[in-house]
């Protein structure tokens, strides 16, 4: 939840490099290859499942934000 990608047309969920899942190569960001995101209104979060997921992620910036989010360098933005 803390980091997710969406398909640009929002009709096809994308297989993001969610959180720290480094096994997914960056070139697959927009592949639309996964059905991980389900457009189902009747699904509800299970607290224990969420905690279990996050316990499996690194306790680091990469872990909480995802490698893509935390490491991408956007030089087009001038701060």
């Amino acid at each position, binding site marked *: 939840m803390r980091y997710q990608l969406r398909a640009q047309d929002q009709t096809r969920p994308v297989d993001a490099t969610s959180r720290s899942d480094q096994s997914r190569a960056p070139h697959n960001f927009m592949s639309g290859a996964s059905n991980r995101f389900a457009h189902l209104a009747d699904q509800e979060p299970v607290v224990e499942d969420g905690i279990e997921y996050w316990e499996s992620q690194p306790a680091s*910036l990469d872990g909480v934000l995802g490698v893509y989010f935390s490491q991408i360098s956007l030089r087009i933005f001038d701060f």
Partner: protein
Amino acid sequence: MKSLPRIDALGSRQLLLQLFPELCTVPSPLKPATIRERSARFRALDVGAGIGRVTRDVLLHLAQDVVLVEPVDKYIQEAWSRAQFQENPVLDQDSIDVEDETLEEIDFRIPWKGVREKRTSVTLIQSTHQSLDPSNPLSSTKFIGRVGYKPSPNELEDINSKFDVIWCQWSLGHLSNPDLVLFLIRAKQALRDTESVIIIKENVCAEIGGPTNDGIVFDDQDSSLTRCVGEGPPNVVGVDAHESSDRTFKGLFAEAGLSLQLEKTQEGFPEGLFEVKM
């Protein structure tokens, strides 16, 4: 700091300064000519705080006391390690090889503004949103520790004080709609006054009737929801008006008795991300 977290943090701080221009510490067009006097220390609650990124990069730049709440054990323990390091930075300067340092090692040492000087404080608590009562944060939760400023003689005598800001970012997707409404009701009761705010910064998906149609997306990997903002009373053929609005952010805010003061999009994120709204 890396680019996207920096953009995120700056967007958040700009929003806070827009809502509380008196907190601006430098000359700025945002700063009002007459400053509202504050009789109490500015307090913020950071829920679903992870390892303390928002506390460090956003809240401590403007707030004096932050209560950091996180349910995941490894994250709250990491946040506690980082917080303790601020008070007692055990550094062997000779052992630090700047060239070999990883970004994570650098990130660990980034100062938490005012903590070491005891001008600010961070109180760390382990709890889910569902168990947390922001009016009484230590009830049914696990106290981890406090760093920085501490009231004397009881370092937790201010723990039940009201909050000026309750910050919820990238965590409310783990709450069901009923749980979210109940949490927002409890959060509202913990606000200091009519100027106080609950800030929600979350991914949002397409609206009801949009391409995904449902106005909600479930992620079965981490068991979380991405909701749509909602745009007033829905007028969608085949979708019951009440059923559809009560799962949008605006519908849930209304159900919790909250009014929306300000709505902004986090700019500067790349294409392909869910839109992030505050």
